[in-house]
């Protein structure tokens, strides 16, 4: 009997993790706030005032209140399930991040690869949902989304491998907790000069992953009418927008964990960690916004070439340097 109770408590704690703290709610709020900051700062970079920081919340709630039209060409089940699949995988991903001293809800020996795969799921959800709607614009959109994914996946893999090698030495560390712990003792990875190209590459990957300006070919609303999202309306669209925001949050969190690390704050771990995390997340998002502010949308073939030459090159430099023990 106590065993069952303990088990039940475990499940409760896990549910709390999943739904509230590092999971859904936290990620949603954080992601939407980050998206708001992104829009606000972008506006200021363009010398305008911009929306309030809570604007993404308004957008989300408004979309929740709108009618959901399911197009005749779509299968209602897949059409409605697609955004939720993306949401689930994203909130699941949050459980792997050791956020401000709080150790990850799920640690593991190789969660980096799990994250690598979980990162593709929202894109896949978008693609499945988009192609379920049967629009030719969505067809073009998913084609582009797929090529973008092919583009950034190669450098992303190389960055992750480089980090794992750098941290692990002879024994690879594919766990975020391990990387975080390593940085506690050895300082931020960003300040290891061999990791700087990898960090740069990762920063260039974030916009493509999130789908902002120079790399937003898949959802180019002025060109192919938002691509895969073209037929979405109402609550599913709201969740897709939420997914984008959470993805932003996840990517910044990943960057912070991978490169900005952790600082031993002793008894102030909770507050100090929070501040550190917020600062690093905002800094990361600012980099993204900055790129957004002064670039125009790339063509898809240019994008692919860019990722497989420049970004992959940066990551490769880092990987080679790390491999030779630098």
């Amino acid at each position: 009997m106590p065993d069952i109770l303990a088990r039940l408590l475990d499940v409760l704690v896990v549910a709390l993790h999943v739904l509230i703290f590092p999971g859904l709610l936290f990620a949603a709020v954080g992601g939407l706030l980050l998206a708001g900051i992104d829009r606000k700062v972008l506006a200021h970079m363009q010398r305008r005032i911009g929306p309030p920081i809570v604007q993404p919340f308004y957008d989300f709630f408004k979309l929740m209140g709108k009618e959901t039209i399911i197009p005749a060409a779509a299968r209602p089940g897949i059409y409605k399930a697609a955004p939720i699949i993306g949401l689930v995988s994203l909130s699941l991903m949050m459980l792997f991040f050791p956020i401000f001293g709080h150790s990850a809800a799920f640690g593991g020996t190789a969660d980096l690869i799990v994250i690598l795969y979980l990162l593709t799921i929202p894109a896949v959800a978008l693609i499945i949902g988009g192609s379920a709607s049967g629009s030719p614009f969505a067809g073009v959109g998913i084609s582009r989304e797929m090529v973008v994914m092919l583009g950034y996946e190669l450098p992303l893999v190389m960055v992750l491998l480089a980090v794992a090698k750098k941290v692990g030495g002879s024994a690879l560390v594919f766990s975020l907790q391990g990387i975080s712990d390593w940085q506690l003792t050895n300082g931020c990875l960003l300040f290891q000069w061999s990791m700087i190209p990898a960090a740069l590459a990762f920063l260039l990957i974030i916009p493509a992953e999130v789908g902002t300006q120079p790399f937003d070919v898949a959802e180019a609303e002025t060109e192919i009418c938002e691509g895969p999202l073209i037929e979405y309306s109402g609550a599913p669209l709201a969740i897709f927008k939420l997914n984008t925001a959470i993805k932003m949050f996840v990517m910044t969190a990943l960057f912070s964990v991978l490169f900005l690390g952790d600082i031993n704050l002793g008894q102030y771990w909770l507050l100090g960690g929070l501040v550190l995390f917020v600062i690093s997340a905002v800094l990361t998002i600012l980099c993204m916004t900055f790129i957004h502010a002064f670039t125009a949308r790339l063509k898809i073939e240019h994008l692919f070439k860019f990722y497989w030459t420049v970004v992959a090159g940066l990551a490769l430099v880092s990987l080679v340097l790390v491999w030779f023990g630098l």
Partner: protein
Amino acid sequence: MSNFYVHFPVISVMGLFLAAFLVEIFGNKNKHVRYAISLIACLGAAAMTFYLIVPVFFRGEVISYWMGGWKPEGGYAFGIGYEIDGLGLFFGLLTALTFLMSVLFSRRYMERDGHLGHYYTLFLMLAGSVLGLVFTGDVFNLFIMIEIMTFASVALTAFRHGKHPEALEGAFKYLVLGSIGSSLFLLGVALLYLTTHTLNMAQIAALISSKGMQPTTLLAFGTMLAGLAVKSFVVPFHTPAADAYATAPASVSTLFSGMVNKAGIYGIIRLTYILFRTMDKESLMLLLSILGALTMFVGVTMALAQHDFKRLLAFHSISQIGYVLMAVGLGTNLGLYGGLFHAMNHTLFKGLLFLTAGAVYYATGTTNLDKLGGLAKRMPRTTACFLVGAFAISGIPPFNGFASKWIIYQAAYEKANLSGNFIYVIITVTALLVSVMTLASFIKVTGAVFFGQAPATLEKTKEVPFGMQLPMFIMSALCIACGLFYNQTIVYVVNPAVNAVTNPAKYVDTMMGEGYAFANGIGPQPTTFTSVSIWDPVFWLLLFVIVTCAVTLVAVSGARERGPVSLPEKTDSKHATFFGCEESLHSHVGGSDLFWGFKKDLKGYFKVMGNLHSGKTNDYALWVVIGVTLITLFTFVFLS
């Protein structure tokens, strides 16, 4: 009779062959008779194979069976022996599962074809030959099974030549290249016999171990490896696979990817790990890993360029075999786990995908991606099964492909770390990239076949009959189950096979008598499955919790406050697809048009690959000759 099951392997193989003849004799007139014979034979063989799990997997036995009771005499094995260890049974299970599914599928799928008596004859011969191939302990018997397998495969490939003349072409190429492969294998057998004067694999293993590698043995190894590589369609030899898989009936394609492919892989594992025990050589590991990486990369990129559903799947088969070969070639335990697990998963999901391709062909009469579209609304169950297969092959959690691929990555990178060789890093990156490309390629199929707008010709498409759905459902369920409970799968299914691979002494001892292996210098080195797992099933349980919670959240917030959901009652402009032009100008984005930017940037590569896959038999033969020469030379130079 406590160990009555020792007869099961032989009975199952012979039963299949016997049924083949019975079908030819009695089944040409009555379709029920021939199907009953086929089904009973397949069910019986499968049941017997599955029964062997109990002694072999659970109790760790190795079953040996001497034909006619010709036991080894004076340390020399004269008779033909059957020997079933964990590895053999592992592949035997895959084989049994595959032909069982395929025979279930064939009943409705092939109903529109004539000459079905011949079809089931060849089908049963193919099943029997592959089952015999993995159960046999005799190297010449292995060759004969390979030949029967090739023969039956070729005939089955050309089975639909009436409707598709290309099937003849595919069959001919397959036959020519396959005969080169089997001839090479025979050459290796002959050379092996020259040095060891025996054909029993257990004894050969022991003798090679005691005598050491001689030049003749090396040559034999090289040619046999090359021959088996041809049979498993590794890269320079992959060309007939694409043609044959694409043109054969889908039920046969399922057999090809489920067991014919695997037979080659089984041969390579048996050859390298047990027969010659050369897997401790770094150079061989490199050779196999690089071959594997090359295979998966070439396969997946070629798949991206395809616009025929089955041809695309065929190239994916090649690509996934590359994964298996790469993992097996790493020479580590983890690699073996990954490779074998992936081989099993490949059987499941690729069989499933070929079955869905067959269902699409059955329903629409074509597999051309540019002519298909919008089937999701018309064939919802097939679509669901296809999505499961596509996600599994792309390595999306929580499906089985993810679990095995993840072990493979870990193994590859670990290998890179251990050996300090940068090539393994490249291989790891390639493997990860290929996974994404696989996903991309299946997105293309998903978009082109099941989603999007249906062409006018497919308006009346209907879901396939239940007889065809059932095998797809079983395969899908297995895909999901192996993904969710992959830990258990590895422990109970893959682990015995890996143990068998890493413990050749037991294999030799069972066949040749206790102590024979030790006498010839084969030491026991059993391993167990350790420290691979990161997740336990509780984790996946949690996933379901989250899914439920998320759905509930959406539902709760939407109960009253959320906007209404407007379902399309009938076709009106409110629910019509949004596009900026007239309906007549509207077009579905076809399969060939996807990945435009990708193809444009890599057009040089695709052009070269297109030229290499010229379709000429001579070119392909040349490829094989070059590949075989290189492999043989490599083994000769680096393994001595």
